[in-house]
Each structure stands twice: as C-alpha cells, then as structure tokens.
C-alpha cells in the first residue's frame, strides 16, 4: 500500500499461530508500524486481507477488535486521570472489571505505589508499564505490540518479556515490532524481516 509518496508492504505476507510470538524487524521506514496498524484494522490495505480463524477481519470488525490488544507507539493515557482511573475506563469499555483486578495488574507492573497519581506525573517508563498493564487486563487472545520496550529500563524490559511469556504460555499469540527485544522465557519468537 502507499503511505504518502512511498509504497510499503508490497508483497508482505505472514501468519501467527496460537502460543506463538512473531517479531517484526526492519529498518526505519520499512513499514513496521503500518503493518501492525493494517493487521489491527486501523488501516485498510489496497490489496490483501487480514484473516482470523479463516474469516476476513473486515467483515466482523467489532468482534476482531475485541480479540486484539493493541499497544501503539504512544501510551494512550489521559494525563489528568490517575493510573487507576485510566485503566478502569480503558478496560471498562471492553469488559466489566473489578477494582481488585486493577490493583493486581498495577502491582504486577510495579506501579502499586503510584496508582493514584495522575498519569501526567509518571515517568515515561512508568507510563509504558501502565500501557502494558492495560494490554494484560484486556484479556485479548492476540496481542499487537508496537515497540513495547521503548523508555523501559532493563528491569522494565524483563517485566514486559515476562508478561509476554505468560501470555504465550496461556495459549495467546503476539505480534511484536521491536528493535532489540530481550529474550522471552520459554519461547523463541519467529523473526520476520521487512524489506526496506
């Protein structure tokens, strides 16, 4: 398809199975983010389709959205709302959620002490962890993560890798775009390189 004056993702095709993690690699501008957005359903490709369980996702869009957990470049957090409130609203739009679940998720990503702070006061790394907590709480079988390790220190990166590992262990699938991903416990991701 075309992005402005450049044609990207010509002839790209990939598949992800349950319990599998696919790492998308490529130079800047090769279309990693575009690919993830096409698969998520935010962009429509000029040619080609996205299929899940044998059916095109375009046909049953809302169902497809409920199946995926998408992490974009931006954290998608409201700076005026607290960490807790952000999660409550974002996840609440998808499914009913209890306060204990939110508390547990915040603890998992190491933000229990900051849960009532406005998201605008958190550091960049803390915000990324919060965004990751949102993905875990969404209870979606397929994760699409765009550069999940940005702004994270080594502990944070290991944390995210651990969350990924747990998700894959439970039978979920993931598609990750990242430059230098750390290793995921018990899993070796399949690598796909995009031509530039």
């Amino acid at each position, binding site marked *: 398809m075309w992005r402005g004056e450049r044609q990207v993702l010509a002839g790209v095709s990939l598949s992800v199975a349950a319990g599998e993690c696919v790492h998308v690699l490529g130079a800047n501008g090769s279309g990693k983010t575009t690919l993830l957005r096409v698969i998520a359903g935010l962009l429509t490709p000029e040619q080609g389709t996205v299929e899940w369980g044998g059916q095109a996702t375009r046909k049953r869009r*809302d169902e497809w959205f409920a199946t995926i957990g998408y992490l974009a*470049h931006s*954290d998608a957090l*409201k700076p*005026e709302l607290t960490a807790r409130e952000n999660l409550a609203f974002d996840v*609440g*739009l*998808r*499914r*009913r959620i209890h306060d204990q679940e939110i508390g547990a998720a915040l603890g998992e990503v190491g933000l229990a002490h900051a849960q009532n702070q406005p998201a605008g006061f958190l550091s960049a790394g803390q915000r990324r962890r919060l965004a990751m907590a949102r993905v875990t709480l969404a209870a979606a079988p397929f994760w699409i993560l765009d550069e999940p390790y940005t702004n994270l220190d080594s502990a944070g990166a290991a944390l995210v890798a651990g969350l990924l590992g747990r998700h894959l262990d439970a039978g979920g699938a993931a598609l990750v775009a990242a430059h230098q991903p750390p290793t995921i416990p018990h899993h070796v991701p399949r690598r796909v390189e995009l031509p530039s």
Partner: protein
Amino acid sequence: MNPTGILGAAWLAYRRDLLLALRHWGQVAQPLIFFVMITTLFPLALDPELAELRRIAAGILWVAALLASLLGLELLFRSDHADGTLEQMLLCGQPLTILALAKGLAHWTVCGLPIVLLTPFVATGIGVPFEAVGTAMKSLALGTGILSALGAIGSALTLGLRRGSLLLGLLVLPLAMPALIFGARAIDLSIHGDSARGPLLLLAAMLVLALTLAPPAVAAALRISAE
C-alpha cells in the same frame, strides 16, 4: 470474560469526558466567557440603548452562541487524537456510533448547557424582555445541541490538521445556518409577544435529525482520520 454492554460503555465514555472536563474546568470556561464577550461587542459597536438592542437581540444571542460553540468544539476530539486515546477507543470493540453519541452528549453538557444556563443573564443585558427569556433558552438549548452534533462531524474530519480550528469554522457554519434561521426567528417572535411554537418545533425536528444522522458520520470520519 464478561464484555461490557453498549449502554454501559456509552455511560463510561460519557463519565470519562465529564471527569476530564472537571479536572481542567478553566479550559472549559473559555467558550462561556467568549459567549459573554461576543454579546458585549454589540452594544459597544452599536447603540447601547436597550430598545435598539432588542430589535437585534435574537441575532446577537444566536451568533454569539454559534461562535462560542465553535471554540468549544476544540475540546471534543482533539486531545484524544493527540494523546492516542482515540485510537484505543476505535479498537475497543464497541460500536463507534454509540461512543460518538456519548462523547457528543458529554460535550454538550460541558459546553452547550452552560451557555443555555447563562442565557437569562446575557439576554436581559441586551434588552430581551422577561417573558421571552424562556423561549431564548429553549431555542439555544436546541441550537447548541444541533451545533454539537454538526460540529462533531467537522471536528472528526479535521483531526490533526494544522490550523484545523479555522477549517472547522468554515466547514460547520454553513451547515448550521438553517438552525440559525429558525432559532433566531423563534426568539424574535417571542420578543414581539407572538408564539414561537412553529420555529421551535422545526428546530427540535432538526435536532432529532442531527442526532440520528450525525453519529454514523462522526464514526466514519473518525476512522478516516485515524488512517
């Protein structure tokens, strides 16, 4: 997994926007101040004699409400688009039309309703007799509702564009002119002691039409802007 129902999601979206507005109510007050300021321009520019102002009061009220609402439309989708929250809303699996309606309603509660509540004071200031104030409030209530609906379409189409606010005015004002015609007419009739039922009913019909047709258009526009 226990998915949230449509109404539950709509209520959640409505509450979130209200909470956000509460947290920076300084920004929310700006359109309101603008409304009062524009109204003040007319006695300054023309004749401050109340009898003279009364003749054009209906027009003043409506023009001021229109322009203030335009300013208020900035609050609707722009910040959501900027911080990425809009994208997440597109992907949450709930029908976007209903969410758009919920956000539009929240926007009206925060921008349109205060204008309506302030109308008695402003209207009296430009010579509207006490008996006509009720009609003025009804007319502006319906009008700001129509404006929120139409403005939502414009706002969704101009997300992320530089000088999108100027473009927004260009897009929304022509669409709002029919409402202006009937709304101002209603207030004018009431000022002269006649019944304003006709124009008010037409205005209400326009609002119903806007509430039915605008949310799908807003949803489509949001998806277009996210590409």
